[in-house]
């Protein structure tokens, strides 16, 4: 794999040459430490296809995550990559007890986001019946869940709670549903949320982990024991490093999770920094699986927010404001969970560049920012104007995010 990227991807070759490394220096998994890291910025800088290791005619699928205007992170899959992805998702579903007799409702968004199609292909591979309903349309979701007899649900944990609430509003008792287990991911969630989902839907709620850069959902998934997420180690090598010194940490310590892909062809990644903080557990699991397990991720080593499964960086918001106002006014993003759905509010201080004597102008300015953010990030953000100096100033680095969701386990 190292040899392949060295010869096929200039970016890796340059990076390795700068460190005086050749593929021959990497003989075993212990040599991994010698290799340089790859980051999301590297993917952005080589936008769109710079890190692909195969010619485009071998790519059969593209996915992308939102980015600053025009700079999304693009991932490409060969036919074999799609097979590997289906395989790891199928294993995830199997560890949740899914078989060909199940009916899997995929309520993740379908499209450029990897959630929908990832679960879809995996569930088909298991041989289950797939309901590709995608996200939204909540009442219809519940109606089909009841009428079809869905047994497995896949969506974001916040959407699962929203479904539970709507169920109650519709006056449908959970006993009318056959749903047994849910695979929830694409955003951090707590043990408290797990208990709530399990109680309200009468199911077992499992955490499925993945990121599009590495492959998508299915990189790791909990089994029914719910004692950490089993990493698909035959495809992805996991390391935990100190996010400041970047040194590999001793087994069992908490730090930033780093992945190296073993089998990926389209977009192989060497030591990709996920920015997710977790620790690894190598003792065998009660389910019998011997693969390493990662603990549930609840924190990150950067300021990225995950809102309803969508990645949001404060810097993206800043560049939108910069474009519209000419200068970046003081702002803060407030994340809150209303009715179990994450909600993002942008508070912008009205300074001399923004103020107008005309209410209509201020309102249309607000609307402009709202639309620009929606098209850049793909999610709707409430924009609120506030008086100058009302946003807290901190020493040094400005505090750009107030997270009120309280994601403590």
């Amino acid at each position, binding site marked *: 794999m190292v040899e392949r990227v060295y010869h096929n991807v200039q970016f890796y070759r340059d990076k390795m040459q700068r460190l005086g490394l050749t593929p021959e220096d990497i003989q075993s998994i212990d040599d991994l430490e010698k290799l340089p890291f790859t980051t999301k910025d590297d993917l952005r800088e080589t936008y769109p296809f710079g890190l692909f290791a195969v010619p485009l005619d071998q790519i059969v699928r593209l996915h992308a995550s939102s980015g600053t205007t025009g700079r999304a992170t693009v991932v490409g899959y060969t036919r074999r990559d799609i097979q590997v992805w289906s395989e790891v998702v199928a294993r995830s579903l199997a560890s949740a007890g899914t078989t060909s007799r199940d009916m899997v409702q995929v309520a993740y968004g379908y499209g450029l986001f990897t959630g929908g199609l990832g679960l879809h292909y995996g569930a088909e591979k298991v041989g289950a019946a797939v309901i590709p309903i995608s996200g939204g349309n909540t009442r219809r979701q519940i109606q089909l869940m009841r009428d079809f007899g869905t047994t497995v649900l896949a969506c974001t944990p916040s959407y699962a709670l929203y479904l539970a609430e709507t169920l109650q509003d519709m006056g449908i008792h959970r006993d009318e549903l056959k749903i047994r287990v849910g695979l929830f991911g694409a955003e951090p969630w707590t043990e408290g949320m797990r208990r709530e989902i399990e109680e309200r839907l009468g199911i077992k709620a499992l955490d499925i982990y993945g990121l599009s850069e590495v492959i998508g959902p299915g990189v790791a998934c909990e089994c029914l024991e719910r004692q950490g997420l089993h990493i698909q180690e035959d495809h992805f090598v996991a390391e935990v490093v100190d996010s400041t010194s970047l040194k590999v940490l001793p087994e069992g310590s908490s730090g930033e999770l780093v992945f190296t892909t073993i089998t990926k062809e389209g977009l192989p990644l060497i030591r990709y920094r996920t920015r997710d903080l977790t620790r690894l557990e190598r003792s065998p699991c009660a389910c019998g699986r011997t693969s390493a397990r990662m603990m549930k991720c609840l924190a990150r080593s950067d300021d990225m927010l995950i809102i309803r499964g969508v990645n949001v960086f404060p810097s993206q918001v800043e560049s939108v404001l910069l474009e519209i106002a000419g200068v970046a006014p003081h702002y803060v993003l407030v994340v809150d969970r209303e009715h179990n759905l994450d909600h993002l509010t942008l508070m912008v*201080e*009205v*300074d*001399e560049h*923004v*103020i*107008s*004597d*005309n*209410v209509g102008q*201020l*309102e249309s300015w607000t609307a402009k920012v709202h639309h620009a953010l929606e098209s850049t990030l793909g999610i709707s953000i409430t924009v*609120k*104007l*506030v*008086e*100058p*100096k*009302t946003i807290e100033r901190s020493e040094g680095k400005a505090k750009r995010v107030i997270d009120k969701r309280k994601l403590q386990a």
Partner: protein
Amino acid sequence: MIIQQLSVFLENRSGRLTEVTGALGDAGVNISALSIAETSDFGILRMVVSDVCKAQEELRARGFSLSVTEVICLSVPNQPGAVNRALRILSQANISIEYMYAFAVGSDAFVMIRTNDIEQSISVLMENRLTLVPASQLREC
């Protein structure tokens, strides 16, 4: 004839208006006209004050966002049809009104008007012998 009107951005929070009026009162700045345009989240307080410079200084120091806008003040008899006559003159001159606020007491009525073309508004109103209140008169306390 042009009057400098001060506009202040205010969040809809209790006590904000008092902070403005209090600051101006303490600084000895008189408010001769005032109006608020509000939305569900914020409001714009518009004022004509005795000393625009001093008011700006005081309010900026307290962290308020301000802008100065030019308006005119029309004085008409407190009679039916008087304001209508003035508005018709403006509309015939193709001038549009962004906003206005007014009050009448005794035999006089005063209308503060913001238009898209202040200079042109002054000349057509004066040509038609309407009375505009000079800024100096509003500055006196």
